[in-house]
């Protein structure tokens, strides 16, 4: 099943930019904008998983929300199987949402506390009215089974479930309309480690069974490494490195990516011996007063004068491996 769909680009995001008005504007002076996501582009092939990783303030969650048009983008294109999401009118968008669903981070606040589990899972079907009412219960039954919940749990309210079970309900809800793309925004970061494994395994199993495509947002590089086929690393609203899984983890090029990877504590003795920890000093720049040059320059251990004045482009330095750093060339060697 996977072969025939291979290489079909399902989601194509071009120059996506999201900015927030943070004061001013109107009658009184010039408006001030915070560019949370600044001109990012990426593609996901059908059946694959792309991860956007980054730390807090990198804009990864905003990017995901903008792709789903849960936050309005300032400019760009979000093309899902031939439909540009950003140009749809309200009613078209509402209908198109069937094709793109969302799994949220917090299993406690993402389920309406006043609604029974079965109705939560059924809600997308009720909203979109594409399936006759008589068939919806059967779909809900199947979804409960698919995510590993008991049929008798359908009548319960969210607070009667554990965190992992709640996340399963959220996953069932996202599957209800048979979407092409599921955006997972930190789906396990609020869960206990042992429960994380249950949910990650479930997601991978569902992906294999239903040929799902994931856009996976996470700060946890271990999880990303396990779940994804390719990875985009974001820093301060920009994609700084974009590569397939093996290239990124085995040959990280951007100094930020290298530092990020080296910061992850590991149980692997070999890795700890092999990796020199690179501490990046200081804090990210003020997002309202971004530097003219590379946004990482003020913390980068190898920054040069050019980095402080000239913004690097995201260039392809090896097949499928893009980096936005002045110091990385076709030899694809990290400056660090």
């Amino acid at each position, binding site marked *: 099943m996977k072969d025939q769909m291979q290489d079909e680009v399902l989601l194509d995001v071009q120059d996506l930019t999201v900015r927030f008005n943070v004061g001013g504007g109107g009658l009184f002076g010039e408006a001030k904008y915070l560019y949370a996501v600044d001109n990012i582009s990426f593609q996901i092939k059908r059946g694959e998983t792309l991860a956007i990783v980054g730390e807090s303030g990198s804009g990864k969650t905003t990017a995901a929300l903008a792709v789903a048009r849960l936050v309005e983008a300032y400019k760009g294109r979000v093309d899902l199987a031939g439909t540009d999401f950003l140009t749809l009118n309200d009613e078209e968008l509402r209908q198109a949402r069937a094709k793109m669903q969302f799994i949220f981070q917090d299993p406690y606040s993402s389920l309406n506390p006043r609604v029974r589990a079965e109705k939560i899972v059924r809600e997308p079907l009720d909203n979109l009215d594409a399936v006759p009412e008589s068939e919806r219960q059967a779909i809900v039954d199947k979804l409960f089974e698919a995510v590993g919940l008991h049929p008798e749990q359908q009548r319960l309210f969210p607070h009667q479930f554990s965190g992992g079970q709640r996340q399963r309900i959220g996953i069932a809800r996202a599957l209800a309309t048979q979407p092409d793309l599921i955006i997972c925004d930190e789906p396990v970061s609020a869960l206990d480690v*042992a429960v994380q*494994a249950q949910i990650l395994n479930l997601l991978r199993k569902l992906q294999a069974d239903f040929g799902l495509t994931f856009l996976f947002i996470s700060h946890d590089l271990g999880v990303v490494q396990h779940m994804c086929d390719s990875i985009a690393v974001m820093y301060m609203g920009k994609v700084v490195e974009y590569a397939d899984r093996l290239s990124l983890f085995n040959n990280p090029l951007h100094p930020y990516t290298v530092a990020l990877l080296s910061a*992850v504590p590991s149980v692997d003795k070999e890795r700890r011996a092999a990796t020199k920890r690179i501490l990046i000093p200081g804090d990210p720049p003020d997002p309202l007063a971004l530097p003219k040059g590379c946004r990482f320059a003020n913390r980068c251990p190898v920054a040069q004068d050019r980095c402080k004045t000239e913004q690097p482009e995201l260039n392809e330095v090896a097949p499928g491996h893009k980096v936005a750093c002045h110091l990385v060339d076709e030899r694809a060697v990290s400056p660090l």
Partner: protein
Amino acid sequence: MTAPLLKVENLRIELTTRDGVAPVIDDLSFELGAGESISFVGESGCGKSMTALGIMGLLPEKIGRIAAGSILFEGEELSTASEKRMREIRGNDISMIFQEPMTSLNPVYTVGEQIAEVLRAHQNLSKSAAWSKATELLDAVRIPNAQRRVNDYPFQMSGGQRQRVMIAIALACEPKILIADEPTTALDVTVQAQIFDLLNDLKRQTGTAIIMITHDMGAVAEMAQRMIVMYAGRNAEQGPVENIIEHPRHPYSRGLISCVPHIMATLTEERHPLTEVAGIVPSLREFGKDQCLFASRCTMVSQKCLDKRPPEVAFADGQKSACWHAEAV
């Protein structure tokens, strides 16, 4: 080895809940040597934080109490010490940092005032001496421009900086033990690396022993020499970190290690499903039963596990495991 700095023996802490009294810590024993660092690992609800609060004498009033056992700090019994004595010890000899650096600082005082306050309370320093020491401490926890930042309010600092301030406060009186309860869980991984680096350096310089509470096996591997895996208020396994990671002798420790997708030295194409530890930590009502509390989630469970609580089995390499099947794991 001479007498340990901290010796906890058969500690039992009971919590009164709506459903009755539950032993949130049940027969826990461990030792901490001077300058040593140990880690408590486990899922939430396993009693890691409760152990720390018990040592600090900060159990929730009227709800929690030390029911049995002893906590010896430099030979002094803490479990029965007066509140006045505990106040002297807290901050002076044993101090603690918490998970949430956003809420553990008082927003209406500058960070300098908050550090100086601790110094004056415990060490009777004059106002100006306390202030200059506060600046030194901020510098020691690597806050750039300490001279100026000492006048900042907490909201003017980032999460990582606030956690550094907490560390500065905790270390102000050069304690013998620093308890760090999930100190980096709320922080980004690059900031976590800075904090770990700082803690390790400070430990080397001051000889403070560190007890770190965490759920992250990777962090344990980086930070601790010995670890104690806690499950449902009990000690599941303890021993040297390297040995347990290499060869866990309790199914729970094994599960905790292998359920996380770790980044290995070299990544390969193949990916296996993660090992699952099915189910969740039992509710407090189950605590204290005479059986293995992990049995309901264990793949190696046998009748014996359900009939009797497993004793701790000591191994030659320093590991101790509370499992009937420890030899087989």
